[in-house]
C-alpha cells in the first residue's frame, strides 16, 4: 500500500492505495464520492469523467497514484457555493439533458471542460467534443441543446418538443 494525497473539490485528502487502484475507485470507495460512475472498462463511455489539474480525464483510465499531488474536481464539487445548480447543471435541468442520470456527471464535467476552452461552441463542435461520452437515454438532442444554452446561446430555434 502506498500513501496518496490530492486535493478533491478543494479539500485535501489522502489515503492508502494499491498500485492498481484506479482514481475512480479512490474517489468512490475511499472518499465515498459516488457521483463519478463506471460505465465501461475500455475507456469509451466517459461516465467516470473528472478534471485533473483542470483537464478532463477518464478516472477509470488513470491510476490513483498518478493523481498524487493533483487537484481533482468531481461532479460533487460543481454546484454553486450556496448549493444551487451551476450554469451547466441548471441548463441540463432546464433543457431535459438527462434521463436516467448515469452518464450525466461525465457529461457535465466534459461540458465544463469544453466551455472553458471554447466559450461559444457550435453545435458541430459540441457533438465532436462529446465523442468520449456515451448517453443511451437522451439521443443527445437535449444534451447538445443544454450545452449551447449554458454557453449563453439562444436555443429557442432548436425544436423543443
Amino acid at each position, binding site marked *: 500500500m502506498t500513501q496518496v494525497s490530492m486535493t478533491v473539490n478543494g479539500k485535501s485528502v489522502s489515503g492508502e492505495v494499491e*498500485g492498481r487502484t484506479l482514481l475512480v475507485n479512490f474517489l468512490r470507495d475511499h472518499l465515498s464520492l459516488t457521483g463519478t460512475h463506471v460505465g465501461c*472498462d475500455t475507456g469509451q463511455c*466517459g461516465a467516470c*469523467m473528472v478534471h*485533473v489539474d483542470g483537464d*478532463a*480525464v477518464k478516472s477509470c483510465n*488513470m491510476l490513483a*497514484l*498518478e493523481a498524487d499531488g493533483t487537484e481533482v474536481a468531481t461532479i460533487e464539487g460543481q454546484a454553486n457555493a450556496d448549493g444551487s445548480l451551476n450554469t451547466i447543471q441548471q441548463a441540463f435541468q432546464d433543457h431535459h439533458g438527462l434521463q436516467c442520470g448515469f452518464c450525466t456527471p461525465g457529461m457535465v464535467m466534459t461540458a465544463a471542460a469544453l466551455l472553458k476552452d471554447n466559450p461559444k461552441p457550435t453545435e458541430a463542435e459540441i457533438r465532436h467534443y462529446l465523442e468520449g461520452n456515451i448517453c443511451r437515454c437522451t439521443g443527445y438532442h437535449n444534451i447538445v441543446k443544454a450545452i449551447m444554452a449554458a454557453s449563453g446561446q439562444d436555443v429557442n430555434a432548436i425544436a423543443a418538443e
Partner: protein
Amino acid sequence: MYNFEFERPTTIADAVAALGGDEAQALGGGQTLIPTLKQRLAMPGKLVSLSGIPEMKGVCVNDDGAVSIGGGTPHAVVARDAAQHYPGLAALAGQIGDPAVRNRGTIGGSLANNDPSACYPAAALGSGATIVTNTREIAADDYFQGMFTTALEEGEIITEVRFPVPEAANYQKFVQPASRFALVGVFVAKYADGVRVAVTGASEEGVFRWSAAEEALSGNFTADAIKDLTVEAGGMIGDLHGSKEYRAHLVGVMTRRAVAAAA
C-alpha cells in the same frame, strides 16, 4: 487488474533505472495499457510512470527547423502547441481518441504500443520522423516492425520524436465507428525531396508506406495523379467493420482526400 508496484520517477535516468528490474513496464498516458491491465491481459510486476518527467514533455522547434516533441507529451498539447509549427501533425493529434484521451495519452506511449489502427504511427512514418530514445536515434522507416512490434529494446524509452516539417501535409482518418480508432488513416507529407504516404488501420502488418502513391505524387502532387492507383486487398485487415477489399478501397480514397486537402 493484477497488482503491481508503482514508481513515478522525475528524470529519464531514474526511469531507465526503474525499468531495469524484472517485469517492469513503462506507463505512458495509460489509455491503452490500463484497459489492457483491467482485462488481465498483462501482468507487470512494476509500472514505471513516465508522466512525471519534465524533460520528456513539450513541443519545440530545433535549429534545423524540425519539430521536437517530448515522448511524454499528451496529444492535446501537441494539438495546441504544434499547430503553428507543423499544422498537419497538430491536426492529426487533435483527432486521436477523444478530448479526455488526448489529455492523458502521449506520443511516446502511442508509438511504443504501435497499435495497427493508431494515428501517430502514420504521422511518424509519413514524416520520416526520428524516434529518439534514451540510448539512440531510430529512423521511422526502421522503427515500425509490424502490428504492436517496434525496434524498441526492453526498457528503452522514447524520450523525443523529431519531425522534419514538410511543405504541406494532411491526415485523413476514416473512423471505426465503435472504437473511433482509424479504420483507415492516411498521412501525406510533401517534402522538397519527395512525398511520403503512410497508411494506418488498413494492413495486417501495421502502418506502412504506400510507395506507388509516393512515386506518383512526387512527380505530380494532385489527387488526380493517383486516381488509378490501388493497393492489394490481400494483406489488408478484414473484420466486422470492413472487408479487406473495403479497406484497400479506402486507402485510395483517403489518400486522394489527403492530397487534395494538402495541395
